[in-house]
């Protein structure tokens, strides 16, 4: 109980990952979907650092997590540029309105 091991961190990150999936599936605002993606990336990062601390050792976990943060920043910038373009074309940020190519 008072000995914090790798499984405690895995439990928290599993919850955050599931919430990220839920947010991505239920939000209709495009920026809400981006929030869900950030939650999923954070859950993965906690797993990287926890395994690096308890099982692998060295700097591997922390540096992998740092590259994930770089990717998350790049992804957020591109996603927001796409959303601004979407807003210019459809005058809304509701992703359910993007059905132009529906068969």
């Amino acid at each position, binding site marked *: 109980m008072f*000995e914090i091991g790798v499984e405690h961190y895995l439990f928290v990150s599993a919850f955050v990952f599931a*919430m*990220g999936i839920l947010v991505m599936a239920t939000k209709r605002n495009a920026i809400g979907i981006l929030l869900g993606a950030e939650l999923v990336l954070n859950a993965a990062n906690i797993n990287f650092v926890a395994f690096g601390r308890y099982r692998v050792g060295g700097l591997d976990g922390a540096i992998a997590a740092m590259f994930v943060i770089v990717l998350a920043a790049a992804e957020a910038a591109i996603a927001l540029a796409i959303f601004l*373009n979407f807003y210019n074309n459809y005058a809304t940020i509701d992703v359910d309105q993007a059905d132009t190519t529906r068969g």
Partner: protein
Amino acid sequence: MIEAVIFYISAAVMIVSSLMIALSRNIVHAATWLLGTLGSAALLYFLLAANLLAVVQIIVYAGGILILIVFGVMLTARNPYMRFQPKRGEVLMATLVALVIFASIAGLSLSHAWAVLPDGAAGQPARIAPVRDIGVALLTDYLVPFEVSSVLLLAVMVGAAYLARPEKR
């Protein structure tokens, strides 16, 4: 003991704030709750002896990505408090999927007996790597991903500027 207290506090903050992101229908509130998730993730990195990573998390996420998201909310909403209701069936299905994912991952990670490093065993303080070692590792062992990520950032900069350019008249 003190480590356990800090862990449980930040884990509770993380769980509550990520749950509130999923529950809040207002995008501004969800973005505010994201700050709690990111801050408690930084606390967890401190507990895991990744000090530089915790500082990078605060600078890049709370200082950069969250500001970007709030800007996106302000630029794309005529009324910042507007809300879109998802369909009831969709919410039910997504909740079921999230529950199954959470139960399977959490059950697996709690039931497995993880072998730990001898010096990384629970209850013992970890060795905190100095920032100098991380810099040396980035420029020797991890040189290829480091250079690839610099090219990626350049491509992202060009791509974002191209996508968000004003319309031609």
